């Protein structure tokens, strides 16, 4: 891509910078304010104002970038970062259609979530800090999207991880939150290390970190197959970690310990999408390794079905949404495995908006009923909080794939992509997953909002406007954005062709009808089970009680990990610790110290401290040198 320094490109690098500056301003002003005010609540609104202003500026600049991409097709600019030998590492940004779409998603969702957070986090004692890390996270995520080289991307990737860690553990006084933050950090760390190794492997093979250069080299066959495959696999493992793919999905449900807007922003719309985005970004070299693509597809499929099944049995509203997120991320990966970048990204956006809507709606519900999350203790909330209920329904329906909501279009596109790849078995299983996802969406929407209101919920009420306005905006978008898939005008050929000009907008009527039927069937089934109780859930459970139990215990994966940690990691750790104590500490460290000590003990006698000794030794040495000189001279 030619480097044309247009206005849009400059706007693009400003977007993350503003947020980073906002982070610094908030942190510094917090410190300074801490000196002058013991009661920091007086300055509480400063932080959200700074942070929201920054992200709003980012969102406005996003339109500039979008315009630029539409007119000129994007580009890249970069500057020197550091030069090591012959290698120069640069920091720079790279803007194309995929990244501009992500840019819009991230800035928009961040903006709404932050506005929503003013209402949700009101009165929290670390109010400013919350917005500071929000700004930091936004800066990191935007940098990750825009980075034009892998090292810079990795740098942002880790910062995103840090932001996620800080936000999950935001209520660190709560032990479970602290544990969840650690779990998320450590689990994604495994993927991050693999990603770093993959990046380094690619660097070793090509001598550069620049993504497009790597593509060129790889496409011209400059990288051996073994290296290429292993590095791509490692990069994919990194993406799996961040995107909570099986078997790294365990951290995401626990991450719901963070504040709900955080879940909406990070664990639904943006950060977890980073893995999908990374794979989409690296798609040109993924396509060079069909085996890896197959792995991507299989992992995505497993995740999709597994997480969907787990979402079906969870009773915690946020966990249901979390498993649903995992499931949809699996779907995106699956689609990427078939090479459908456009469909995956489209679903990413649609799902991001809808899931943000659902999470914010869930947050709104929890906010009004004393942070109750068990869906079985809710019911009939649509009378108490109608706006939340309606928007929630729209989001759920969208994800369930009801036409003409956005989810319908994106899911259809995904299915098409799988079909085009000729994976009929996968397609069949995917359709099962589609049914599952519609079913759990029906469950999570019907149980809390419909039915009769329990007594203890009668005092609940609609949230403040600062919280429901973002919900409405998201709901409208969630309903309407699906039409982007259609060729709306002569200049806009539809999403697929916009992202990838080789694709064209097309429809497969039987697939569309099949998915509509599946979704409707799931909804009706859910209706009859959860609202009408015409079908008893218990009977279904008793069909296969052990299977149900397995699902309820999340397939024992957490227990497996715990066992591995207890039996293998800790045992090995004890062994290493023993080695460290006995060999390294006692023998190597202490031993060298003792040997120095002992030799000093012997030789220190030479240091008498008497002028006499030193003087005599010096003079005799000089005499010896003189005699030596004579001997040599003669």
């Amino acid at each position: 891509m030619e480097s044309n320094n247009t206005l849009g490109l400059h706007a693009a690098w400003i977007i993350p910078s503003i947020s980073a500056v906002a982070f610094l301003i908030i942190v510094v002003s917090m410190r300074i304010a801490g000196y002058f005010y013991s009661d920091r609540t007086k300055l509480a609104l400063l932080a959200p104002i700074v942070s929201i202003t920054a992200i709003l500026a980012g969102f406005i600049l996003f339109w500039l970038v979008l315009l630029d991409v539409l007119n000129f097709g994007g580009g890249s600019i970069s500057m020197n970062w550091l030069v090591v030998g012959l290698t120069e590492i640069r920091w720079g940004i790279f803007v194309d259609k995929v990244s501009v779409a992500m840019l819009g998603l991230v800035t928009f969702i961040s903006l709404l979530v932050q506005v929503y957070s003013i209402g949700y986090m009101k009165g929290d004692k670390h109010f400013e800090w919350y917005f500071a890390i929000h700004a930091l996270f936004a800066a990191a995520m935007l940098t990750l999207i825009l980075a034009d080289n892998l090292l810079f991307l990795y740098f942002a990737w880790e910062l995103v991880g840090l932001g996620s860690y800080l936000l999950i553990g935001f209520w660190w006084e709560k032990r479970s939150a602290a544990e969840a933050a650690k779990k998320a950090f450590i689990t994604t760390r495994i993927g991050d290390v693999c990603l770093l190794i993959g990046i380094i492997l690619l660097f070793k093979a090509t001598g550069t970190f620049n993504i497009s250069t790597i593509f060129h080299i790889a496409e011209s066959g400059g990288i051996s197959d073994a290296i290429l495959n292993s590095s791509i696999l490692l990069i994919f493992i990194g993406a799996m970690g961040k995107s909570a793919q099986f078997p790294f999905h365990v951290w995401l449900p626990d991450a719901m310990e963070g504040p709900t807007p955080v879940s909406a922003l990070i664990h639904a719309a943006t950060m977890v999408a980073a893995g999908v985005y990374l794979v989409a970004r690296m798609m040109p070299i993924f396509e060079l390794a069909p085996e890896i693509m197959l792995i991507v597809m299989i992992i995505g499929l497993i995740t999709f079905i597994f997480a969907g099944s787990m979402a079906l049995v969870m009773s915690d509203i946020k966990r249901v949404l979390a498993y649903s997120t995992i499931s949809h991320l699996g779907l995106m990966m699956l689609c990427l495995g078939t090479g459908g970048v456009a469909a995956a990204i489209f679903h990413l956006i649609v799902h991001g908006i809808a899931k943000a809507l659902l999470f914010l709606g869930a947050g709104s519900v929890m906010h009004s009923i004393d942070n109750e999350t068990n869906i079985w203790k809710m019911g009939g909330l649509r009378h108490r909080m109608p706006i939340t209920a309606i928007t929630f329904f729209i989001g759920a329906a969208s994800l369930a794939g009801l036409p003409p909501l956005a989810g319908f279009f994106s899911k259809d596109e995904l299915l098409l992509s799988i079909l085009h790849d000729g994976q009929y078995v996968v397609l069949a299983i995917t359709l099962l997953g589609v049914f599952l996802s519609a079913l759990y969406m029906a469950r999570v929407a019907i149980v809390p909002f419909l039915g009769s209101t329990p007594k203890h919920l009668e005092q609940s009420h609609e949230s403040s406007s600062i919280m429901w306005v973002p919900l409405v905006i998201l709901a409208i978008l969630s309903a309407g954005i699906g039409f982007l898939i259609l060729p709306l005008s002569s200049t806009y050929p539809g999403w697929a062709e916009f992202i990838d000009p080789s694709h064209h907008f097309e429809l497969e009527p039987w697939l569309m009808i099949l998915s509509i039927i599946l979704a409707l069937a799931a909804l009706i089934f859910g209706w009859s089970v959860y609202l009408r109780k015409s079908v008893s859930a218990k009977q279904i459970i008793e069909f296969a009680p052990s299977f149900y139990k397995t699902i309820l215990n999340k397939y024992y994966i957490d227990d497996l990990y715990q066992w591995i940690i207890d039996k293998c990691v800790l045992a090995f750790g004890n062994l290493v610790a023993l080695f460290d104590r006995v060999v390294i500490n006692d023998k190597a460290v202490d031993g060298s110290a003792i040997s120095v000590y002992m030799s000093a003990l012997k030789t220190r006698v030479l240091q008498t401290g008497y002028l006499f000794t030193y003087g005599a030794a010096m003079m005799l040495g000089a005499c010896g040198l003189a005699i030596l000189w004579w001997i040599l001279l003669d």
Partner: protein
Amino acid sequence: MIELTHFQVLSGLLFAIGLYGVLARRNAILVLMSIELMLNAVNINLIGYSIFMNASESHRALGHVLIIFVITIAAAELALAIAIILRLYRNKSSINTDDINIMRW
């Protein structure tokens, strides 16, 4: 006639005397005096070579110049050394070099 050997022997004797003083005396001020003796032994040697060498005038002037430098440095060294000894005396009430051994093992 005086010859260079005279100067050398005198210089050597004075140097040996000074060296013995540095090594054998225990009083810091006496050590200092012995060092002055050694420096003067060097000066005698320098002036001896300066007046007996068959060299250009500028080469022979080197001997004189060096003597001037030696005397200058001796003065500087002595100023510092006396200051050190006085401070030592104030802190330890002794200027015996054998008592100043806190830096040893």
